[in-house]
C-alpha cells in the first residue's frame, strides 16, 4: 500500500517517478544467511501475522516445505532442498520472498500507471488502487514472486514491511528470526556483513561461498549468503537473473518504438494532409460532390 511519507523513485507505466531528489535516502536491505537458517518458519508466520494474511490450506505431500511456491496469502516461504555433496549431505534452506530488485522486472512489465512503485529507499511495493490485476508482473519477475490474488483481484507480494520500515522498525520476519540469521540495515552495511560471513565460510572450507546480489537486475534489496554460491539453483535461485527479454524488449525497445511509430504515423499523416490536401476524385469532379 502507498506510504505517503516515502518518495517514489520509479513508478510503473510512468515516464518518471515523482522524486524531487531533495531527500537523499539510503537504500535498505534485508540480509539472509542461509548457512545459519534452521528452517524454523518463524518468519513465515510473522509475515502472515503482520500483514493480516489469511490462513492458507496446505497438505502434507512428503516435505517439510510449507507450500510448493509463494501464494497471494503467503509471501515468505522457506525452501528446503536435500543435496548430496562430496563432503556429505546438506539440507539447504533459503527464505524465498520478493528480492526488491534495483531494476524491478515487475515494475517494468506493469502496464498500469503507478500500480508498482519503487520507493527512494529501494523497496518495491504494489499500490492496489492502481493495480488492474493483469498478471504481467508475474511474467516480468525473474524470481517468480508476484502472485495474483483471486480474492482481491490485485497482485500481492512481500513489501519489505515498508510500513514498519517507514516507522523506524525492522521488517516482521527479521524481528521474528530466533537465530540472528536475518538482519536489516542499509544496503552498504548488509553487503559488508555478507562479505564478512562469506570470508568466514570460505575459511571453513566452503570455497564457493558468495553473497548473492545479482548485477543483472542492478543488485537486489535482499542479499543472500550462499555457502554453495556456485550453484544458486540448489537454493531455488536463478543463476544470472535479468528482467526477461520479452519484457525489456517490449518495454525498452518495442514500446518506445511503438510510441514513436504511432507518433511518427500521426505526424506523417498530418504533414501529408497539409501538403497534399483532401483526397481528390480521379474524374475531376470537385471534392464534396458525390457521383
Amino acid at each position, binding site marked *: 500500500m502507498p506510504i505517503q511519507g516515502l518518495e517514489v523513485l520509479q513508478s510503473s507505466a510512468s515516464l518518471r517517478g515523482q522524486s524531487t531528489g531533495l531527500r537523499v535516502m539510503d537504500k535498505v536491505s534485508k540480509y539472509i544467511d542461509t*548457512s*545459519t*537458517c*534452521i*528452517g*524454523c*518458519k*518463524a518468519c*513465515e*508466520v510473522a509475515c*502472515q*501475522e503482520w500483514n493480516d494474511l489469511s*490462513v*492458507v*490450506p*496446505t*497438505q*502434507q*505431500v*512428503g*516435505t*517439510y516445505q*510449507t507450500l510448493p511456491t509463494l501464494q497471494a496469502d*503467503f509471501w515468505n516461504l522457506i525452501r528446503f532442498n*536435500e543435496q*548430496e555433496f562430496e563432503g*556429505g*549431505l*546438506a*539440507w*539447504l*534452506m533459503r527464505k524465498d520472498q520478493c528480492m526488491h530488485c534495483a531494476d524491478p522486472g515487475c515494475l517494468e512489465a506493469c502496464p498500469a500507471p503507478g500500480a508498482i512503485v519503487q520507493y527512494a529507499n529501494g523497496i518495491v511495493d504494489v499500490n492496489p488502487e492502481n493495480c488492474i490485476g493483469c498478471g504481467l508482473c508475474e511474467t516480468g519477475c525473474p524470481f517468480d514472486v508476484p502472485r495474483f490474488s483471486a480474492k482481491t483481484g490485485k497482485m500481492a507480494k512481500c513489501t519489505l514491511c515498508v510500513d514498519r520500515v517507514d516507522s523506524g522498525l525492522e521488517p516482521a520476519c527479521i524481528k521474528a528470526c*530466533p*537465530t*540472528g*540469521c536475518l538482519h536489516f540495515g542499509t544496503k552498504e552495511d548488509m553487503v559488508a556483513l555478507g562479505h564478512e*560471513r562469506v570470508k*568466514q565460510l570460505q*575459511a*571453513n572450507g566452503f570455497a564457493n561461498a558468495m553473497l548473492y546480489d545479482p548485477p543483472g537486475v542492478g543488485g537486489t534489496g535482499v542479499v543472500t549468503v550462499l555457502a554453495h554460491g556456485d550453484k544458486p539453483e540448489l537454493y531455488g535461485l536463478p543463476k544470472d537473473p535479468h528482467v526477461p527479454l520479452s519484457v525489456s524488449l517490449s518495454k525498452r525497445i518495442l514500446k518506445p518504438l511503438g510510441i514513436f511509430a504511432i507518433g511518427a504515423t500521426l505526424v506523417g499523416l498530418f504533414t501529408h494532409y497539409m501538403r497534399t490536401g483532401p483526397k481528390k476524385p480521379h474524374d475531376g469532379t470537385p471534392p464534396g460532390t458525390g457521383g
Partner: protein
Amino acid sequence: MTNGWVDIKNADVILAMGGNPAENHPCGFKWAIEAKKTRNAKLVVVDPRFTRTAAVADVYAQLRPGSDIAFLNGIIRYAIENKRFHEEYVKLFTNAPYLISEKFAFDEGLFSGWDDTTKSYDKAAWAYQPNPSTNTYDVDPTLQNPRCVFQLLKKHVDRYTPEMVERLTGTPKETFLNVAKVVTSTGNAERVGTITYALGWTQHSVGVQMIRAAAMLQLLLGNVGRPGGGVNALRGHSNIQGCTDMGGTFEILSGYLATPRSELPDLDTYLQKVPPKTLNGEPWASMNYWQNYPKFMVSLLKALYGKAASKDNDFGYSWLPKTDGNYSWMYLFDEMLRGSSNRAGGVEPGPEGLVTAGMNPAGIGPNAPKMIAALSKLKWLVVVDNYEIETATFWKAPPQYGGAPPAEIQTEVFQLPASGFAEKDGSFTNSARWIQWKWKAVDAPGQSKPDQEILARIFLAVRDLYQKEGGALPEAVLNVAWTYTNPANPDLGEVLREINGKALEDLFEPPKDPKDLKEPKKLLKAAGQQLDSFGQLRADGSTSCGNWLYTGCYTEAGNLTQRRNNADPSGLGMFHQWTFSWPANRRVMYNRASADGAGKAWDPSRPGIQWNGEKWGGPDVPDMAPDAPPGKFGAFIMLPEGAGRLFAPVLADGPFAEHYESVEPAIQNPLHPKVTSNPVSRRFSTKLDKYGTAAEFPIVCTTYRLTEMYHYWTKNTGRLNQLQPGFFVELPEQLAKESGIANGEQVRVISARGELQGVAMVTKRLGPMTVDGKPLWHIGLPIHWGYTGEEGHLGPLANMLTPSAMDANTWTPEFKTFLVRLEKGRPLKTS
C-alpha cells in the same frame, strides 16, 4: 543445565547429541549460532537423522537409535588412549584416584552384586575402599593402581574400539574418529566444549546411563564448571524445570529433597538415612553440602504446615504422604489398568481417580491402547486443560485404539477449563535455571481459570469436607498452611515469597565464642523478613522456606525474578542482574572447577571464579565457601566425595555406562548376547503389554518433535497447521524403493502394539546403516497428531506403536527406540 543458554556462545565445540536443539529450542539455539559466528566454534551433531540442527552443523555423524553409549564410551576410550583429556583437572576434581572394592567387576554384561531374583544390584560391591587408619578413602593420586577408578574406567571402555563403535552404532569408523578428534580437542585448559542433550537421551531404557557417559566424558575433558562447558539438559517445556524444582515427580519434594518412604516413620530416621554421609577422600575434604538437609527439610515443613508444625510433632512430618511403592507413570497406569497396586503393605486397589492438569496421558503415554484402556477403568477423571484433549475425550477414541465401547465405560469425566500460557502470570524457570517472572498478556476466555485458582478451590472444598466429615488422617489436609490474602485464588507473588522463605523469629549470627555470654548478639534477620540465601536456613523451626534452591529470588528488595537489567560486564553472558538463577544467582554450577589448583582460571579469557589470596571472586557467584582457600574443599560440593564421579556407585544399573540394546532389541548385543538389554529395566505383563522381536519387526523406529508444533495442542492452531498440516513417516530413500513406497504415498507402520498410517516422506536424511555387519533400517515419526483438534488436521497417535518400556533409574518411557515393520498404506476413505 549446569551452565546456561547464553553461555553456549563461550564454547569452542558444541556436541549436540540426544537432542535436536535447532528444532526444539530455536531461541536458545541462537547461542550455538553465535558461538559459530563469533568464535568460529564447531557444532558437532550425532543423531540417527540429519535434522535441522545437522543442517547447520560443521560435523554430522549418523548413529543408530539407542546406541549412544557405545559412541560416547568410544570417545572416552579415544581420549584416554590418545592422551586427549585434561589430566590435571581429572586429578584435582574427579574420583579418578579413588580405589574401588576388590569385589567390583564387570563380566558378561553384568556388574558384580547382581541378584537374579530381585533383578537388581546390591551396590555394596561397588564401594570405595575405606582406609580405616586415616578415616578416609583410599586413593592413588598417580592414577596407576589397577583398582583406581581411572584404571577401571580405562578397562571398562577398552572394548569400545573404533571398529566396535562402528559395529554397534552403524557410524563409519572414519566419521566416528573425526567426531572424537573434534570433541576431545577441548580436553585442556585453553579450550572448552559443551554437550547439549534432551529427550533423545532421556527417553531410553538406558537413558540415565547415556547422560552418565556424557558427564564422564566432560569430566575427563575438564569441561564441567567452566564457562562454555558443562552437561546441559535442554528441558522440553518452558517451565518443566520449575515443575521438577517444585517436586514435580513422586519421589522428590521441592528442592529435590527426597519424598519420605514408608519405612522412614519419623523425621529423625529420615534425616539419619536420607542425606548422604560425607566421604573424605584425598587430597581434599568434602563440603558435602547435602549435610544441610535438616535445614532444608524442616524449613520446608514449616512452609507446608505453618504454625501447626513444631518440634513436638516432628514439624508435621507424619502428615506428609509417604511412598510405599512406585508411583511413576508406567506403574501408575499399569495399576490403573489392572485395578490393583503393589504397595509395601501388600496389594491394594488400583487408583480410582485421576486429576490430570496440563498433561495429556492418552496422547503422550507410551502404548496408547494401554493408556486409553487404563483411563476407562477409572471411577472419575478430572482434566484441567484449555483444549478438549485426547484424554478428555478418551471414550471417543477411534476404534483402532481398541478402547471399550462408551456404553461400557463407567468413568465420570470432568473438564475444568484452564488458562493458556499468555493468560496467566507467575514465574517460568528455564533450562538455565533462570527463574523469570512473566506477566499476563490477555484475559482467559469464558470460564477458564488460572491453575492456582483451580487448585485452590479444589483444596478449599476438600478441606471443608474434612472439617465437616473427618476422614483418614484429617491433619494432613487441615494443617496445611493456607494464609494467602485471597485463599481461593492465591497471588503468585505471595506464593513466590513463600517459596523464597522468611525468618519466623529473630535470627542472630552464631557467636564467635560460644562461651562468651557477654558477646553482643548480631541480628541477621528480624522475624517476618524475607531471607537472602539458603545459608540462612535453620533446622530448628525458626525459618520457613518452600524451596531452598529458590531462596534469594524474592528478598526484602522485592521480586528479583522481575529484574531485566542486561548488564554483562564480563562479556560471558552471565547477566547477574537479569532475573535470579538458582542456586544463589550462580550462573555456572561447580565453578570451582573453572580454576586450577592455585585458584587461577584455566582460561583467563573465560574465567568462572578466581582466588585473590583471601577469597573467591567473580565474575560468577562462587560455588564454594567464599573464604576457603583453593586446597581445602573438593569442587563438587553436592556430592559426598566432593569429587566428580567418573565412577558412580549409586545408580540402579551400574557405576559405569554400558551399551545395552533397547527393550525391544534390534540385534543380539555383540558385547554380551546373554544380557542383551538393560537387565534392570523391566517389562510389563498385562494383555496390552506386547513386545515384538526383530524377526517380525525388522525396522527400528524412533519418535520426535517438530519446530512448528508443540505436543498435542498446536493442532488447534490454524497458522501452525499450515506449516505442518499432517502426520508423516520419514523413510530412507533406499528402504522406500525396496518397499515400493513413493514420496507422498500412504504407508502403514506396524508394531506389536498396533498400527498406524500416514504420508511417506522419503528422504536422504535417514541414511542406510550397517549394524553388526548387517544392513539395518530406521524410520521416524513426529508425534503431534491425535484424534482431537482442528478439522482436517487430525491424525494417528505415534504412541500407538511405542512399547511399555522404561529407564531403569527414572522410569522414563523408552519412546525413542522400538521395532516396526512397513506395509503399503490402505487407500484413504473418500467421504
